[in-house]
Every structure is written in structure tokens, then in C-alpha cells.
């Protein structure tokens, strides 16, 4: 078989298969009204989340931006279902020095009511390599704050699992990017 025939047949196969995937992506974004691209550029994230950051620190943050790890910054939502609380909490995760800190921004109950949170720091990620991380998660139980060692596992760029095991009390929370 001629090399040109091999080349054209191969290109046709690749275009056909990849084309199907991209057509479905475009079709889905058309029907759901979502953005065409599912790329969440970290730089864009920084700009879209400026509501939560002061302008000075924001510009500093962009200058110190590390694209391998800092894409984790932004607004995240975690759902909870326990005897004490059923609903969701909106967090803002930002880089402060060499660590990432998450602050509670808003509480949402199952009926859709929301209440602004006091902005307490709930999570500090001390080490993060872009996929996994380690840190401290603060939890209030019976009026006392407990600092629990926790692990971060990125599921994809828009989801991570936060897991902790504290004297036999273990749980895994799923945080979704908003």
C-alpha cells in the first residue's frame, strides 16, 4: 500500500473518531448551555474569583502562580448529611504563602435557603503536588474545635476528595468546583 494511502486513511480514521467525541461535546454544550470548552484555565479561575480576594493580594497571587498546583484555588461546594447538619457549605480556597486555606463562605440547607458564613478557616492544605495533598481539617464537635490530619485526592480538576480519620471517626467529603 502506498504511503500516501496509509497517511490519508489514518487521518480519516483519527478525524472520524475524534470528531465524534468533539461533536458530542459541542452538542451537549449546545443543549445544556454550558461553555463550549471544558478547560478550566487556572488563570481564568483566578480572575473569576476576584470577588473573594483583595486586589493587591490577587495580583501578587497571579505573579506567583504555579500552574501545576494552584488550579485548586477557587470556590468549592461540599454536601453534608448528618444528624447535626444536612445541606451544603460553600468554601473559598486560596493560596496564602506556601499553603492553601479554605474558608467557609455560605451555608445552604436542603430547602435552598442560604446563610452567609463567618468566614472561618476550615482547611489548610500544607502539601499539594497537583494530585494529592496533606493538610489539617478543622471540625467543631460539641463546641470544641478539633484539628484533624486530612488527605486531598484530586478526582479531576473540578472535584477532589477530602478524607480524614480522627480517633476512629473517619469520613470522605467530595468537594466540587463552583
Amino acid at each position, binding site marked *: *500500500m502506498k504511503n500516501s494511502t*496509509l497517511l490519508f*486513511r*489514518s487521518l480519516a*480514521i*483519527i478525524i472520524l*473518531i*475524534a470528531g*465524534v*467525541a*468533539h461533536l*458530542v*461535546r459541542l*452538542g*451537549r454544550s449546545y443543549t445544556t448551555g454550558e461553555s*463550549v*470548552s*471544558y*478547560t478550566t484555565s487556572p488563570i481564568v479561575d483566578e480572575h473569576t474569583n476576584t470577588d473573594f480576594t483583595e486586589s493587591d493580594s490577587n495580583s501578587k497571587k497571579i505573579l506567583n502562580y504555579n*500552574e*501545576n498546583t494552584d488550579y485548586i484555588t477557587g470556590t468549592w461546594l461540599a454536601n453534608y448529611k448528618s444528624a447535626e447538619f444536612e445541606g451544603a457549605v460553600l468554601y473559598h480556597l486560596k493560596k496564602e504563602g506556601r499553603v492553601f486555606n479554605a474558608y467557609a463562605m455560605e451555608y445552604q440547607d436542603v430547602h435552598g435557603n442560604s446563610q452567609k458564613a463567618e468566614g472561618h478557616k476550615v482547611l489548610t492544605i500544607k502539601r499539594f503536588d*497537583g*494530585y494529592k495533598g496533606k493538610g489539617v481539617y478543622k471540625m467543631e464537635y460539641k463546641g470544641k474545635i478539633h484539628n484533624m490530619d486530612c488527605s486531598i485526592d484530586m*478526582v*479531576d480538576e473540578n*472535584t477532589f*476528595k477530602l478524607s480524614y480519620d480522627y480517633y476512629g471517626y473517619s469520613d470522605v467529603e467530595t468537594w466540587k468546583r463552583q
Partner: protein
Amino acid sequence: MVEMLSEKLEWIDVQYWFYVLNDLSLLYLIIPFFVLELIRYAFLKQLTKDLIFDSIASVLTYGGFLVVGILLGLLAVTKVYFWIHNNFSLPHLELNWVTILTCVLLADFAYYWEHRAMHRIGIGWATHTVHHSSEHFNMSVAYRFGPLDAIMPIIFSIPIVMLGFDPVLVLLSEVFVQVFQTLLHTEIIGKLTKPVEFIFNTPSHHRVHHGSNRQYWDKNYAGILIIWDRMLGTFEPEVEKVKYGISQPINTNNPIIVFFHGISRLFKKMKKVKGFKNKLLVCLKPPDWMPADPK
């Protein structure tokens, strides 16, 4: 149907499915099948010392391959793939069934070309000849790899990452193709039904690929789908009884010699030819290439 196929999936679920299909298949499919093959050999009075040492050598070469593969794989996925994905890629594709299926198809097509390159480029054959050097054909042969066997898949899968597929999904799909390929290394299964033999790569097609009979050389490169070979002119059906191995047998089960014999033969050939250009061409041209005047 399209709605269901394009529904967004959770990474954690997809990774679990691939874990069951890729990682656990060794326990629930490959090892039990290999045991079955050993029983068959024993029943046919073919369970020779050579076969046992050949199988051990195959598994030991896998250890060497794994070390190189893991180092390269980690580097490729964590650095190169993500860098390309973030800088030179079409819009990123959402994780859904269509993305997974098309990614597996593309990984399979990339496997075809990568495999073809391994046979038709001197440096490729220097490492891939290890896989073909066994004169037996069973599951253990699937684990017989050369020292540089992990490089070609990385190079050939970069275009898939550039097409917008997630690097981790590309890697998982590649491993899936490899696991499917592993299952084809058997003499237990004869020919399957005609539609299956027409579309899919089967043990029969792959026996041909491992044949040293002249008409079987450089045929049936496929991973999962044999239609790539049919479309690109490299298909050959199994007719004559297959004689396994390579044209210049290594006649040893020493795992070190098995693992490095291709590279060592390539260096010897390079030493034989004169001039830098010819030495380079020995690496890039087909394995049987020799300059018109080697001196």
C-alpha cells in the same frame, strides 16, 4: 441513547472500572488462564524444562520493562502529557461514555501504528524482538518485553492528548488495549466465529503475528480491532501451522540475554556499517536494511 452516552461521569467511578478491567484482570483472568495452559501442556506431554524456563525468563523481562516503564510513564503522564494537554490541545473533552469509547478506539489505533513502527524501525525492533523471541506461545509470552518497549506508546499517544483527551484516560485506555492483547497469547482458543474474526483481533490473528513463517512476517499488528490491519494492508489469516519465534533464534532462556539481545544485535550491526549516516539509518530503517556498501 446519545443522552446516556454523553452524560457526565465521575472520575472515581471510571478509575474503578479501569482498575477492575486492567489491574485485577491479572488475578481473575490471566493467571487462571495461564494455569489452564500449563495443565494443557502437561496433558499433551509438552510441559518441558525449556517451556518452564522460557516462561520464567518472560516474567523476569517484565520486571526490567516495568522499572523503565514506570519511570517513563510517571514522567510522561505527570509532566509531558499534562504540559501538552494544557498548552497544545483542542478543547478538553468532558468525561463521559463517548469520550471513553473514542479514547479506547484511538488508543487502539495508536497501538497499531506504534506496534508497526516497532517492527519496521531498527531501534524499535531492537527492543520488540524480545517479545517475539520465545518459541512458545502462551500468556507468559505476553509479559516478555524489551528494555525500550515503553517509549513508543508514549510517543504515539501524545496526539491523542492533543485531541483533547485527558492524559490519565489516555493512559488507562492504553493499558486496557495492552490487557486485551495479553489475552490473545494462547493456543487454547482456535478460530472464533466469522464476524468476531472479521472485526476483532483474536488469538488466531495474533498467532500469525508471532509466526516466523515468511508469509506471517510483519502482519496483524492490531491491539483490539483487526480492522486496522485490514484497512492498512497488513492482515494475514492463519492458514499454515505457525512456527513461533524470530528468524535468528537466541537459543537461550537466560533472562539477561533475552532482555538485551535486540539492543546488542543492533549495536553489532551499527559497528559493522561505516559512516555516521549509515549508523543512524540502521536505527531508523527497517531491521533488514543494510547499506548498499557496508564498508
